[in-house]
């Protein structure tokens, strides 16, 4: 790889490395296309995703004798699968992004406080983190959903309750290391307040691992949401979500494989795209972690 010999910031170098990684860029494009489709769902979806018509029940995709108006065929209630996929992307992406965003904000604040303030604050936060780590993720979410009931808001809450632990641990570790650095010492010596040191001095310097991890976690959260929806604990019908679409299609495996198969492919493509992109981010911005 050729690297410009001019003086470059680590961030600039990272961007350059990322741009040269064709796999990562293609993955980012795939993910962006899905996100754009989700955002523009009302404009591009060919049909109303919830409009049922039993005359179209289990109609096959267009290449198997279906019609162009319903290119990927119809489900058990005669609803257009393509339109439901496009609308379902909204749930996956929105839950994924929202959970990771809230969890990152909570995790960063808790991690900074634990790492920088130490003492009882650190003990309380690490204690809570250790307890939450004691639950397998999916079981924790399923347990909570069972008690709180299904629905969009509850799914986000159930996942955030555990997800914040991930950024929190990273930020705490990085903050502990940063606390001893000269730039933090200098800020303290100049009389900066604790919140200034944490948010203005330390945070910008430790943000890149948090962002890299956030992308991987988003892929993870999307699979968790789909799993919960598959079990019937996610957003409720008739709202389309990829997990519940796979579940609905199970009944028709024998004569209508397309009902379950397409939403599954959608999950796989989105999650893989995010994973490849996040691998590229990691390689570009943290070359130590390449191996």
């Amino acid at each position, binding site marked *: 790889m050729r690297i410009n010999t001019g003086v470059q910031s680590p961030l600039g170098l990272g961007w350059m490395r990322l741009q040269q990684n064709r796999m990562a860029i293609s993955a980012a494009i795939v993910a962006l296309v899905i996100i754009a489709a989700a955002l523009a769902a009302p404009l591009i979806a060919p049909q109303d995703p919830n409009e049922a018509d039993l005359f179209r029940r289990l109609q096959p995709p267009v290449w198997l004798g279906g019609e162009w108006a319903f290119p990927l065929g119809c489900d058990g209630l005669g609803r257009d699968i393509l339109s439901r996929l496009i609308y379902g992307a909204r749930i996956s992406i929105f839950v994924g992004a929202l959970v990771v965003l809230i969890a990152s904000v909570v995790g960063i604040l808790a991690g900074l406080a634990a790492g920088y303030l130490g003492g009882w604050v650190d003990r309380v936060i690490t204690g809570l983190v250790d307890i939450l780590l004691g639950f397998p993720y*999916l*079981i*924790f979410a*399923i347990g909570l959903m*069972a008690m709180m009931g299904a629905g969009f808001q509850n799914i986000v809450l159930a996942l955030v309750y555990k997800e914040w632990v991930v950024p929190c641990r990273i930020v705490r570790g990085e903050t502990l290391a940063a606390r001893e650095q000269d730039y933090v010492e200098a800020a303290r010596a100049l009389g900066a307040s604790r919140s200034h040191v944490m948010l203005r001095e330390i945070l910008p310097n430790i943000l890149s691992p948090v962002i890299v991890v956030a992308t991987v976690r988003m892929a993870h959260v999307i699979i968790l949401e789909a799993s919960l929806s598959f079990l019937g604990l996610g957003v409720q019908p008739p709202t389309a979500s990829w997990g519940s679409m*796979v579940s609905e*299609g199970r009944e028709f495996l024998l004569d209508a494989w397309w009902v379950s198969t397409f939403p599954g492919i959608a999950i796989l493509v989105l999650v893989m795209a995010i994973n490849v992109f996040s691998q590229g981010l990691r390689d570009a911005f943290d070359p130590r972690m390449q191996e």
Partner: protein
Amino acid sequence: MRFGKVVERFIGLIPVLLGVSVIVFLMITLTPGDPVQIMLGDARSSPEQEAALRRDMGLDRPIHERFILFIANALRGEFGLSFFHRRPVIEVIGERLPATIELTLVALILALAIAIPLGVIAAVKRNSWLDRLSTVGSLFGVSLPGFWFGILLILLFSVKLGWFPVSGRIGFSAEVRAVTGLLLIDTLLAGRLDSFWQALRHISLPALTLALPMAAVLTRVTRSSMIEVLRTDYVLFAEAKGLRKARVIGLHALKNALIPTVTVAALETGSLLGGNMIVETVFGWPGLGRLVVEAIFSRNYPLVQAAVLLYAVTYVLLNFFADILYTWLNPKVRL
């Protein structure tokens, strides 16, 4: 590692286990609405029945008393009655546990059997097409939604090809007397090869579904630790001595390269527990995971609570063992 250190570590688990119990306790306590009403649902019940259920669940006492009672009962393995089965929760769970343990163990073995050779080959033939294939395969494995992969396997191997049964653990005619509860062992103990073969065919697809994401992670771990070990002086020295490459890799390098793999496998076994719920639901596997999913929909809260606690305690203990195992295998790390 000194025994005292292990004990010390173990004692350190107590606050975590206590915290886990508090959360499981709160899960049901802070549920909006009256759990008795929710559990009874639409069933017609007299005020006396409601009061009896409330008393049974201890809901008529103050919250701190209820928590102490919950812990005391949990320690004795008492989680109340499973409303739906009209039997103690612990009994119902005990019945389903062997199926889940069997599935988890087979998945674990399968994951290791896929990951170790693949990871070693990828490391030895670094940057070859095999290495790239294993990278893509791992990426695929971690991105694959388990519930969908299971359905695809059913569609292909059960529905289309008819090689494997669609669901269940064993056919009626092939049932044998339970000794360990693990059918693969019980059928062999009974000397029934036909039943063993049937049990094996039943468990293959669910175990593969459960194993694949784990195999993906373990392949990556084995690959990178093998690459590191292959660079160490002792391996280079063994090669310089003129030992055959296969011997150096198989005997000298592998032993150390597998330390992270074994540790991560122990950790990942915990996440198999979550995957169980999905896989058991897809394959109609009569284990604990499916029981919990059923319990959620029949609002059988005491059972859900007991199962979540059981899963969490198992998970904490597995992590503890992974930690001990890592230290034991790796003399460079001292607790």
